[in-house]
């Protein structure tokens, strides 16, 4: 049994069933009931690498505080199949409840006696309401809302929205199913009703997005005009959001034949003047490595999103990992400005995507945004971003310029950019080239071109934001980490007054303030989801600081707050 007495109160709800039973849609709707009632949520979904079939499970973590990590424990389990009971009853903490369909002959004999059983004849209730077996998830939602003092009207609104395309009859029927189930709870389990979904008095409108959606929405808001994305888990959902919105917002999403084509198409579109992006995972990025350096050499802006999953090769395709940091920092031959950012949650995915587009234009360079599967596919509640966007294209002109030199020297390494079709002549030349773009192998041109391109990094490093330090300024232990570990770490350090967390979002150029913070740290713990501790190696390379305390996880599973608390305790010798 999981030890559960943390300072941060998170209600963990889990819904499980067969693929095809609408687990994900019900889970997301319950999450929206929570956010519309004033709570923050984070969801975590596990699924095998199968198209259909198998066992699906979704966890919804609900809290009055910000939450961005899955939990090992469960407070409320909704079981639409036997497997959910068998595999997950052990996560239930004392005082938890399990909701299941007692028209099915589920075996509940293994469930601990301190867990409340909530048998509800879902199939009967659905039939009474005139619904079909496909609506069992709706019935489960109605009961769940009732059991946690939720507002049925919120659920009804969500059903209306979700089934808008299915027609009024379908909406009414689902609402009836939810109501019958809701009423059944009030008639039979009045004494079991808790308040975990009771609407709060102060409700801010929040969006529920996963990292993929945050990246796609932020791209559209940032003026994306051209995206070429070959499908690959875990970033495929980016292309889904882009594809369905391209006509309305006037940009092009193109599915190419492979990732090599993807990056070259995006480079072509960017060369012609469009804000452009690609998105992939580690394997796809391997194919893009070639084009990555082309973009840098012809000084063409490009945003590259890399969503990590466990490698090498096909690896563990539907799970998470942070093993590609070295890959993106070192991909492609030669030296060129390498700009690499890494988001830690959906909110940062949104914010850093915009930053990537701006940096790409400002420095006329490719910019990589690293995320991991947990960020890509975990839903998080975030405040609705400002709907108006300001776009800064940097040094960019469509005027006719006499004696135009695309790669003219400049103190910041960035020259005035033009585009084809406006009368200016220039060459985007993958060979080393002079200020017009003509091929050159002369010593003077080669040295000047290298120095011009590399000088961008000197300017950029000065405008890097400070890396975020969470928790106490004066701590006995400083955790350093990145990516989706952020949520679990922030939750874990709430239990300690003497532990803080340095969250790294900018990997290259390397932010100088990391050394300042770590130089004064009494003790450092590096937490990463990879085998070698790649961030710790980067810190060693850039600062000379050797971190010996590491918590490394490479099972493909997310890191849990409980594991971090245990590690902190062992280091602090409590």
């Amino acid at each position, binding site marked *: 049994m999981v030890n559960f007495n943390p300072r941060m109160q998170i209600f963990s709800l889990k819904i499980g069933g067969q693929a095809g039973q609408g687990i994900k849609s019900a889970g997301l709707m319950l999450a*929206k009931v929570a*956010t519309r009632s004033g709570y923050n949520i984070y969801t975590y979904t596990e699924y095998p690498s199968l198209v259909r079939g198998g066992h699906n499970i979704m966890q919804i973590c609900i809290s009055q505080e910000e939450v961005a990590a899955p939990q090992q424990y469960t407070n409320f389990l909704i079981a639409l199949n036997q497997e959910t009971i068998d595999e997950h009853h052990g996560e239930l903490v004392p005082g938890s409840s399990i909701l299941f369909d007692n028209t099915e002959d589920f075996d509940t004999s293994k469930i601990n006696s301190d867990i409340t059983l909530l048998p509800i004849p879902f199939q009967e209730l659905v039939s009474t309401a005139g619904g079909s077996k496909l609506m069992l998830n709706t019935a489960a939602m109605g009961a769940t809302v009732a059991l946690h003092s939720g507002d049925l009207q919120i659920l009804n609104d969500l059903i209306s929205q979700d089934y808008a395309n299915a027609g009024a009859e379908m909406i009414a029927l689902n609402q009836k199913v939810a109501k019958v189930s809701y009423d059944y709870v009030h008639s039979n389990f009045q004494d079991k009703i808790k308040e975990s979904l009771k609407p709060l008095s102060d409700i801010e409108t*929040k*969006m*529920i*997005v996963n990292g993929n*959606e945050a990246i796609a*929405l932020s791209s*559209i*808001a940032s*003026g*994306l*005009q*051209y995206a*070429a994305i070959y499908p690959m888990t875990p970033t495929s959902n980016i292309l889904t959001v882009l594809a369905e*919105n*391209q*006509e309305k*917002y*006037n*940009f*092009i999403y*193109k599915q*190419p*034949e*492979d990732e*090599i*084509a*993807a990056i*070259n*198409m*995006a*480079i*072509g*579109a*960017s060369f*012609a*003047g*469009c804000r*452009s992006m690609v998105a992939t995972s580690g394997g796809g990025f391997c194919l893009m490595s*070639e*084009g990555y350096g*082309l973009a840098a050499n012809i000084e063409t802006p490009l945003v590259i999103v890399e969503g990590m999953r466990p490698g090498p090769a096909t690896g563990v395709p539907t799970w998470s990992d942070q093993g590609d940091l070295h890959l993106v920092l070192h991909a492609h031959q030669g030296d060129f400005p390498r700009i690499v950012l890494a988001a830690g949650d959906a909110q940062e995915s949104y914010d850093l995507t915009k930053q990537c587009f701006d940096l790409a234009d400002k420095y006329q360079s490719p910019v990589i945004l690293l995320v991991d599967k947990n960020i890509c596919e975990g839903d998080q509640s975030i405040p*609705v*971003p400002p*709907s108006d*966007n300001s*776009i800064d294209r940097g040094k960019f002109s469509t005027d006719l310029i006499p004696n135009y030199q695309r790669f003219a020297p400049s103190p910041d390494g960035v020259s005035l950019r033009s*585009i*084809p*079709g*406006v*009368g*200016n002549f220039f060459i*985007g*030349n*993958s*060979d080393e080239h002079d200020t017009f773009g*003509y*091929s050159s192998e002369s010593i003077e041109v080669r040295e000047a071109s290298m120095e011009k391109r590399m000088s961008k990094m000197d300017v950029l490093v000065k405008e890097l934001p400070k890396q975020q330090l969470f928790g106490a300024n004066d701590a006995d232990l400083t955790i350093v980490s990145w990516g989706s570990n952020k949520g679990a770490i922030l939750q874990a350090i709430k239990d300690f007054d003497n532990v803080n967390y340095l969250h790294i979002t900018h990997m290259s150029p390397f932010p100088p303030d990391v050394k300042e913070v770590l130089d004064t740290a009494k003790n450092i713990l590096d937490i990463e989801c990879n085998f070698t501790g790649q961030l710790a190696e980067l810190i060693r390379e850039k600062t000379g600081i050797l971190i010996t305390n590491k918590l490394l996880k490479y099972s493909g599973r997310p890191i849990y707050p409980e594991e971090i608390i245990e590690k902190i305790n062992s280091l602090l010798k409590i």
Partner: protein
Amino acid sequence: MTKPEDLVTPCSPNWCPGCGDFAIWGAFKSACVKQGWDNTNTAMVAGIGCHGHIINFTKITSVEGLHGRALPVATGIKGANNRLNVFVFTGDGDSLAEGGNHFVHSCRRNHNITVILHDNAIYGLTVGQTSPTSPHGFKTKSTPDGNPDYPISPLTLAIASGATFVARGYAGDIPGLTELMIKANDHDGFALIDILQPCVTFNKEYTHPFFQENTYKLDESYDVTNKVEALKKSMEWGPKQIALGILYEEKKPSYESEIPQIKDKPLVEQSAQRNLSELFKKYT
């Protein structure tokens, strides 16, 4: 109006004297002058190989990309600005070996671009290895005992892959090439001109005399719309059997003509300032 001097750059061609690339270059510049192609309406993309040097000698804005990757770059440029005439200069190694995948899929999607394939059946820039169009038994530095592989016909591959304008030219006929380039650009859809050219340094089989001896021009009785006949014609190779001219032409909407987002204006001419409040609402 494009004048010949508008196309001049400070760089002198570094191709071998007698290289077929000179003829292709001359034919293209001639087409630019005839059609008014210049930096307000045209872009070039080249791959890697001897052909790729053309970007240094022609004052039309261009990308010289990576080996085999000219086609996807051109696809992106056309998507961003469909007002531009987009010309791809590529070689037999560039687009049939390293970039074979892009070649097939670019044909299939019928992008409205013109591809000029400098086909000399040899790797010249790497000083003489076999290429995908080299004949079986061909002796090169990489095949000292004779090429064990069989050649591919770029024309057959293009027609089978869905290209809608497929032609063959010969680097000994500059006016003929100019005419083909103009027709290819006028065609709405993917246009391929496979240009037979000698590599005077490394290919001693496919010489000017060989091409002059064995090629013929398709006459007016030839039906360019018959796909099956075109496929047959594209596979003919042998003494006096090599057809020149347009082998296949099909009227079919180009990829770009079917994208509503760029129906009225190219992407680059549209504002990217957007209000997303309605879209955000879907996620609340």
